[in-house]
């Protein structure tokens, strides 16, 4: 989300989900929306039914691409050249919104200078997309009054993830498609409360409400309320921790509801880190791969057994209501943290999770007006919500960007860290599938979901399959420089020749043994979407 | 017939008396209901099936390979295909399974009385037809039987004990074929449809019974039609995913029909009214 933070000043979806329905042009890039965000896809298809134009930019012919007006099947990792080419067309054809650029943005000269240096024919070759299609996409997007861009992890999970996002923001600002209703830039958040976990400061550099830990004023505010000294230096990020290895700084870890031994890249490295710890405690609802390595495992209550809030991708803070008491001897994660804190000499006394929200409201200005009793009688509140009378904010950046003026950040093409070569001739891309969620610890428990989709399949183009003499259903060994898995083949022209695609939900087929730990230097998002592999028929 | 019956979906325990390995993929389970009285009273008809339960594995429909003319035990021949059948293959004599049934529309043995039978089977498809063949042989006044049985390879040929008896039975002609030969095989190689031209049957006085993989069934049905068999005299039995067995859950839909209650036995005449491309 760092990309939007540098350009707009705030890294979240600028629209409400329902606004997408009334857009005139929807540009979807790096998002398999029908599978990963079905409700968002529903709005897109509704918009198409109302006459909207849908442009899908994806290396694969996804289901959404089949429904699209225009599908640009770019070479993986060439999002920046493609977006730059679109912007160049917009400049060449005088489709830019000069008034918006003048009034609301800064650093446009740098972007223009960069764009004029580009050679469109070269970009056509790099991206593998016909210039004619790029031109049409640029025209559609720029000419419409209400254009929305939706992107997801296909944009961010690259070493140039931040630059990818900045390029999208550049495109939106260039055409003035930001500040209005039904118009904006919408990152779709993958997990149910990833927005909330970020908002709550479960990040190494910020307190709740994106207040930097190394800012003395913020720190003093928190120290005053929590009545204790707080560390000033930003901490280690996820991969810095899980990939620190046996000789790294990690001596002990406390992991709540995460399964890095499935979800993180280069799993061998994660395993080395976890097994070398002097102490590992895990709180989870299932004995995950990670929990199986722990010294202590806490049985946590599931969402049906507790009360609290989640924040969805459109910044809507909503109540989670308890339906049943915790099963067996389970306790909520909140109770576990409170019990540990008490034992370590720091009493946390909350009579309910509603009281915790009151503390959040006290400390995080964007949550200042959010209270459980307000949520109980509404469909939630979209932050920023500045006070208890504030109705919430359906779309961001009305009249001014969070950071003041929108900032253009020109970017050049940065190829993926690992591209196919002679020894590893295929490009592996991975992502989510409709029937399962993340590491599958919950959805794989459903007999029906498992029946519908019970194993990982590797999508291979018919031409590649013919060359490897592979038929649908054959088992393959897929290896990268980091590891290997066994996987079943599915022959389909949804993927381009030379590329293969699969899902990471399945413990039997741990794809992240293969993926690369190279990450974006700013957002520290690993490059899950591109690595080089070889295939052998078993 | 079953208008007043009610179904509570409760399987009855049955004890495995004996297990016969037919080939590497197929085992025949000789079973008796644990409740002796119930076992004695148990009746069924060829072509019908039972829902078989295994702990934690759920249920699967398996057709009878035994004949009710030999009461006391029931035999279910099971090919290893999914997790339930794999677990079943790991069982031993003395272990228990759950059974409910019998279900389905059977082969009407009275109609076959006195007619010559042409049995065409492939792989596990011989199981339900074995029930008919042995039932006929046990009943006086049966006609001539011609059995054509195709397997993938010679070592896959199942029900060898029965085949041995059939091959020596005066009223039976039994031909085997394989898709691919193995050392020591001197019989025919090729699809079972290839044998149809070599047998002497009179379509007017014969009924054909067909069971096997879907592609084979489709090919054989067409070939039999060309040989002059009336559509009503070509019978086959269909395999479908099933959950209830009583025509409610709809997993086994075949066009407007439900295989568990309208079948699994269908004549070609019935199938022609449905969509044949979805065997």
């Amino acid at each position, binding site marked *: 989300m760092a990309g939007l933070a540098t350009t707009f000043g705030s890294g979240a979806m600028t629209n409400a*989900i329902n606004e997408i329905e009334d857009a005139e042009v929807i540009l979807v890039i790096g998002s398999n929306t029908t599978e990963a965000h079905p409700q968002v896809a529903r709005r897109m298809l509704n918009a198409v039914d109302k006459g909207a134009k849908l442009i899908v930019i994806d290396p694969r012919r996804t289901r959404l691409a089949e429904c699209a007006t225009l599908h640009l099947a770019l070479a993986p990792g060439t999002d920046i050249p493609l977006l730059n080419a679109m912007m160049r067309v917009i400049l060449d054809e005088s489709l830019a919104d000069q008034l918006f650029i003048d009034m609301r943005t800064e650093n446009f000269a740098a972007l223009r200078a960069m764009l004029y240096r580009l050679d469109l024919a070269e970009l056509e070759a790099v991206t593998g997309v016909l210039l004619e299609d790029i031109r049409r996409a640029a025209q559609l997007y720029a000419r419409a009054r209400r254009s929305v861009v939706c992107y997801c992890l296909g944009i961010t999970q690259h070493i140039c993830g931040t630059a990818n996002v900045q390029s999208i923001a550049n495109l939106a600002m260039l055409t003035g498609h930001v500040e209005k209703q039904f118009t904006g830039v919408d990152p779709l958040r*993958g997990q*149910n409360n990833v927005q909330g976990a970020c908002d709550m400061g479960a990040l190494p550099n910020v307190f709740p409400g994106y207040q930097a830990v190394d800012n003395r004023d913020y720190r003093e505010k928190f120290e005053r309320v929590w009545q204790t000294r707080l560390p000033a230096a930003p901490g280690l990020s996820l991969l810095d921790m899980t990939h620190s290895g046996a000789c790294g700084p990690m001596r002990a870890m406390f992991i709540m509801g*995460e399964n890095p031994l499935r979800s993180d890249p280069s799993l061998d490295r994660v395993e080395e880190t976890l097994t070398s710890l002097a102490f590992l405690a895990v709180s989870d609802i299932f004995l995950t791969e990670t929990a199986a390595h722990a010294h202590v495992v806490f049985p946590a209550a599931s969402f049906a057994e507790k009360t*609290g809030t989640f924040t969805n991708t459109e910044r809507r803070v909503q109540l989670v209501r308890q339906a049943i008491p915790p*099963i067996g001897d389970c306790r909520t994660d909140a109770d576990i943290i409170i019990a540990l804190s008490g034992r370590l000499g720091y009493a946390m006394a909350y009579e309910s999770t509603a009281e915790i929200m009151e503390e959040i409201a006290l400390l995080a200005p964007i949550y200042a007006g959010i209270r459980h009793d307000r949520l109980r009688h509404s469909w939630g509140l979209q932050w920023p919500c500045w006070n208890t009378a504030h109705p919430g904010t359906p779309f961001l950046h009305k009249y001014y960007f969070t950071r003041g003026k929108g900032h253009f950040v020109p970017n050049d093409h940065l190829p993926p860290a690992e591209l196919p070569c002679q020894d590893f001739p295929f490009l592996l891309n991975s992502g989510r599938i409709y029937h399962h969620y993340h590491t599958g610890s919950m959805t794989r428990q459903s007999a029906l979901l498992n029946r519908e989709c019970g194993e990982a399949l590797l999508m291979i183009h018919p031409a590649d399959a013919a060359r490897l003499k592979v038929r649908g259903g054959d088992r393959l060994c897929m290896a990268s420089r980091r590891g290997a898995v066994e996987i079943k083949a599915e022959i389909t022209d949804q993927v381009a020749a030379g590329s293969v695609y699969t899902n990471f939900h399945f413990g039997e087929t741990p794809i992240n043994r293969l993926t690369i730990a190279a990450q974006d230097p700013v957002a520290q998002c690993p490059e899950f979407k591109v690595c080089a592999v070889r295939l052998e028929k078993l | 017939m079953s208008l007043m019956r009610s179904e509570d979906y409760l399987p009855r325990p049955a004890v495995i008396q004996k297990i016969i390995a037919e080939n590497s993929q197929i085992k025949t389970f000789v079973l008796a209901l644990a409740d002796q009285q119930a076992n004695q009273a148990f009746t069924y008809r060829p072509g019908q099936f039972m829902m078989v339960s295994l702990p934690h594995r759920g249920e699967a429909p398996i057709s009878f390979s035994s004949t009710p003319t030999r009461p006391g035990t029931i035999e279910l021949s099971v090919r290893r295909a999914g997790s339930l059948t794999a677990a079943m293959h790991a069982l031993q004599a003395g272990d228990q399974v759950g059974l409910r049934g019998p279900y389905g529309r059977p082969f009407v043995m009275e109609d076959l009385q006195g007619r010559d039978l042409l049995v065409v089977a492939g792989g596990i498809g011989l199981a339900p037809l074995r029930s008919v063949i042995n039932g006929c042989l046990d009943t006086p006044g049966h006609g001539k039987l011609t059995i054509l049985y195709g397997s993938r390879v010679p070592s896959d040929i199942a029900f060898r004990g029965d085949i041995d008896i059939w091959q020596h039975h005066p009223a039976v002609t039994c031909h085997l074929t394989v898709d691919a030969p193995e050392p020591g095989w001197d019989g025919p190689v090729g699809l079972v449809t290839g044998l149809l031209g070599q047998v002497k049957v009179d379509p007017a006085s014969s009924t054909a019974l067909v069971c096997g993989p879907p592609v084979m069934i489709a090919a054989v049905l067409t070939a039999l039609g060309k040989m002059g068999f009336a559509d009503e005299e070509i019978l086959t039995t269909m395999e479908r995913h099933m959950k209830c067995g009583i025509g409610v859950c709809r997993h086994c839909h075949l066009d407007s029909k439900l295989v568990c209650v309208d079948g699994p036995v269908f004549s070609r005449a019935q199938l022609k009214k449905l969509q044949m491309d979805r065997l």
Partner: protein
Amino acid sequence: MRHVLTTCVYCGCGCGVYLREENGRVTGASPSRNHPVSRGNLCVKGWHLHDFIHSPKRLTTPLMRKNGELVPVSWDAALDYTAQELGRIGASTNGQGIGVLSSAKCTNEENFLLQKFSRAVLKTNNIDHCARL
């Protein structure tokens, strides 16, 4: 039988879903017709939201490693030992040897508490979650 309105956990859309509660068990999930996101429908995961809640694979008791094996222990034993180890290692590394992973699947309140616990009690900013995965 009750219908309890809650929020789906299976993606960032945040659909409003009714859990059907019967005798202490959750036996169904259905959409809220008026919820602004779900608007009367759920995806296939949402309709099967209840399936995992009573899974036999759920952890139901604290576990602690003894002689290499994870064995059931009391809450007090698990909490005491965890507090002791986190306290010991935290003190010896000045908080820098401890890493805390929070969760995009837990509630805001729990994420808030865990980062507070990390910063105020364990004295480390080594806290993150898989926002990028």
